[in-house]
C-alpha cells in the first residue's frame, strides 16, 4: 500500500471523515467546525460531505455543548466535540470532568459515555497565559477518561480512529504548533491501540519518556547528545491514560537512566506520576533519580524569548540528560 506525506490536520480530518462514513452515530460539533470549515481547518470540507445534521456549528458555549454531547453519548451516539482550544475546556469543567468520566461508575455500569473531546493544547504560539493550557496536568488526575497525545500525523490518525471507536470518554490533545507538520501516513486503514508506547528512537544510555509535541524536542535533543556519545532511547507514550508503564520499565531496565519530558507544569503532573511509577518499579535498576523537564512553574508568558525558555526545549532536555548521567 502506498504511503503519502500529509499534514497533521489532514490526518485528523481523514480519521474523522473515515469514521463518519463508517458509522452514522458519529458526528462532529464545536465552534466554527462547519461553515467556517474549522477554526484551524481541521474539519475542512466535512460540512460539504456530511451536511449540517452531522457537522454542527455551536455557539461559544462550551459548558452547554459539552454537556449536550454527553447526553447524546449516553443515548448511544458517538459525538466528537471540538474545543477550539483545550484552554476553553476549563469553562466546561463540570460536564467533562464530573459527568463524562463518572457516568458509567455512578450508574453502576448502566450508562457509558462514548465521546471524544479534541482540540489544541499547549503553548508556543505567543497566545498568552489564558490560551496556552496544557490540560493534561489537570485532567490526568481524573479516573474514567483516556488521554491521548499524538506526536505525528501517523499517530494522530491512527489514535483518533481508535478514540472514536472507543466506548469510553477520550480526551484527544492535539497541538496547534503541529497542525501544519507533515508526515508519512498510509493510504490504507490502520488503527493504533491505546496504551502502547512507540520507540521513536532506539538507544542504550538513557530513556527519554514523553507525550505529544515534546517527543519532537526529545528527538532533537537525542541528535545533539549522540554527537557527545550519549545514546538516547526516546519513548513516545501516545497515551497518558492508559500509561504504558511496561514499555518504560523495559527500557529503563536496559538504560538505567530516565528523563521525563512533559509540557505541563511539574507539580502533580503526568511527569511526576511517571517518575513515581518508575521509582517504584525500577528502584534497583536506576543509577540516578528520574529527572524531569517541564514547562517552568509560572503562567505562560507572551514574549517569544520568555515563552521559548518557558517550554521544554532540546537544550533543557540535553541539560537534564547530562545531569542524570553525571556528565553535567
Amino acid at each position, binding site marked *: 500500500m502506498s504511503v503519502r506525506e500529509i499534514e497533521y490536520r489532514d490526518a485528523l480530518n481523514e480519521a474523522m471523515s473515515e469514521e463518519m462514513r463508517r*458509522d*452514522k452515530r458519529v*458526528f462532529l460539533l464545536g465552534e466554527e467546525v462547519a461553515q467556517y470549515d474549522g477554526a484551524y481547518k481541521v474539519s475542512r470540507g466535512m460540512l460539504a460531505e456530511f451536511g449540517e*445534521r452531522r457537522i*454542527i456549528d*455551536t*455557539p461559544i*458555549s462550551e*459548558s*452547554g*455543548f*459539552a*454537556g*449536550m*454531547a*454527553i*447526553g*447524546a453519548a*449516553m*443515548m*448511544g*451516539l458517538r459525538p466528537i466535540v471540538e474545543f477550539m482550544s483545550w484552554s476553553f475546556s476549563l469553562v466546561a469543567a*463540570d*460536564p467533562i470532568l*464530573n*459527568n463524562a468520566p463518572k*457516568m*458509567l*461508575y*455512578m*450508574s*453502576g*455500569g*448502566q*450508562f*457509558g459515555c*462514548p465521546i471524544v473531546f479534541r482540540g489544541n493544547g499547549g503553548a508556543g504560539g505567543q497566545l498568552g497565559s489564558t490560551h496556552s493550557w496544557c490540560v493534561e496536568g489537570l485532567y490526568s488526575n481524573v*479516573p*474514567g477518561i483516556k488521554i491521548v497525545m499524538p506526536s505525528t500525523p501517523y499517530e494522530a490518525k491512527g489514535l483518533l480512529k*481508535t478514540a472514536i*471507536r*472507543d*466506548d*469510553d470518554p477520550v480526551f484527544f490533545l492535539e497541538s496547534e504548533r503541529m497542525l501544519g507538520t507533515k508526515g508519512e501516513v498510509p493510504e490504507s*486503514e*490502520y*488503527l*493504533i*491501540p*491505546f*496504551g*502502547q508506547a512507540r520507540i521513536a528512537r532506539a538507544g542504550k544510555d538513557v530513556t527519554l519518556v514523553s507525550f505529544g509535541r515534546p517527543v519532537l524536542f526529545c528527538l532533537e535533543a537525542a541528535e545533539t547528545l549522540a554527537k557527545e556519545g550519549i545514546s538516547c532511547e526516546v519513548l513516545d507514550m501516545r497515551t497518558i491514560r*492508559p500509561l504504558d*508503564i*511496561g514499555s518504560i*520499565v523495559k527500557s529503563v531496565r536496559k538504560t538505567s537512566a530516565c528523563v521525563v519530558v512533559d509540557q505541563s507544569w511539574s507539580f502533580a503532573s503526568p511527569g511526576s506520576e511517571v517518575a*513515581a*511509577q518508575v521509582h*517504584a*518499579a525500577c528502584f534497583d535498576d536506576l543509577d540516578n533519580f528520574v529527572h524531569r523537564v517541564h514547562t517552568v512553574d509560572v503562567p505562560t508568558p507572551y514574549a517569544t524569548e520568555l515563552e521559548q525558555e518557558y517550554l521544554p526545549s532540546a537544550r533543557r532536555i540535553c541539560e537534564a540528560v547530562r545531569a542524570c548521567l553525571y556528565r553535567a
Partner: protein
Amino acid sequence: MTASPKVWAILAMSTLESTQALTSFDVHGAANPSSAPSRRPGAMVSAELAMHLLRQMVVIREFEVRCMQAYQDKKIGGFCHVYIGQEAVAVGCTAAIRPSDPMVTAYRDHGHALARGMSANACMAEMFGRVDGCAKGKGGSMHMFDREHNLFGGHGIVGAQIPLGVGLAFACKYEDEVIHERKSDRVALAFLGDGALNQGAFHEAMNLAGLLNTPAVIICENNGYSMGTSIHRGTTMGHNLAAKAAAYGIESAVVDGMDVLSVYESMSLICDRARRESRPAFVDMRTYRFKGHSMSDPRKYRTREEESQYEAGDPITTMKGRMIEAGMLTNEAFKSILREARAEAKASVEFAESSPVPAITELHTDVFVEPWGRYTGSSDPKMLGGARREPSFRAIENSEGLS
C-alpha cells in the same frame, strides 16, 4: 386537542414590566397560575389513570417518610433530599410521556425514579449502599439511574443535568431522523429546581435547545427556594420565569404543580406539541417542598404559617378529595391504597437491609467499558503490564486494523 390559555400562557413583553406586589405567603410571586382554567381539570383523565396518579403519589410519600426514618437511623448516608410535597410533579409528568421518552433530573430524584417505574426496593437499596440498588450502591440518593425505564440519572451538581437533557432530546431526533430517516416523535424531559435557574448551564442549555430545535421539555420544579434562599433573593424576574424562556425563543407555560391533574393535562399538551413541532418548551412548575432542603435543614428561612398554607394544598389530599367528589374513590378505598403503599415502603427498607453490601471488587468495576487493567496507584508495581490490553473495538469486524 386545543391548548387551554392556562397551558400556553405566553406572556407579552409588556408583562415583563409589571412586578406585582407579592402576597405574604406567596413564595413564587405574581404571574401565579391564577388565570382560571378554561375547563375543569381532569377532563382528559380516566378513572383508571386518576387512580394510578393517586396511588403513585401515595407510594412516593410513604417511601420518603421511610427514607427520612432510615436516614435518622443512619441507615442512609451522605445527602438525602426528599420529595414530599412535590409528588404531583414527577407523577403527572411521567404519566404524560411514553416509555421511550428519556428523562433526566437533579438530586431530589427518588420521586422521579419511582414514578418512572423503578421499584421501591431498588431505590431504597441504592440509598442503603447495597448491591441490589439501581446502581449497585455506587450512586446513592442523588444518582438514581434506570436504563430499563429511560431514566438518565439524578445528578448532583445544580444545573448540570439540563445540557444533558438537551443532549437526550438531540439524540432522539438524530437517531430517528439521521440514522433511521423517519420523523422523530420523541421528547426528552429535563427537570431542574428553581435554584438551577442562575447557573450558566441552564442558560447555555436553553440557548442550545432553542437554536438546534431539540424536543426538550425543560421543567423548572419551582418550589420557591434554592436551599434556604427564596427565589426573590436569588433570581431576577423570579415572579415571571416565562421571561427567561422568551429570551431564548422558547415557549413556556406556568403550571400548578400542586395539582396532579393540571400537571398531567398540561404536560400532555406541551409534550404533544414538542413532538409535533420538534421544539423545546419551558415549564414553570409551581410547587412547594414540605420538608427541608435536605435532612439537616431547620427551615429558619421560612415561616410555619407559610408552610401550613401550602400544606393545606397537599397534592394527595387535593386529588383524593376530587376523586371522592367525582365518585371515583371512597374513603375506604383510599385507606387501602395508603395501607398498600405503607407496606411497599416498609418492605423496601427490609429488602435494602437484607441486600448484601457490594463486594469490594466492585470498587474497581464500571470505571471503563474497555479497561486496560486495574489502576492501583503509582506505588504498586502490580499494575505493570496492565497497559498491554488492547481495546476491544466492539463495533468492528474481526481484528481489522489492529497490530
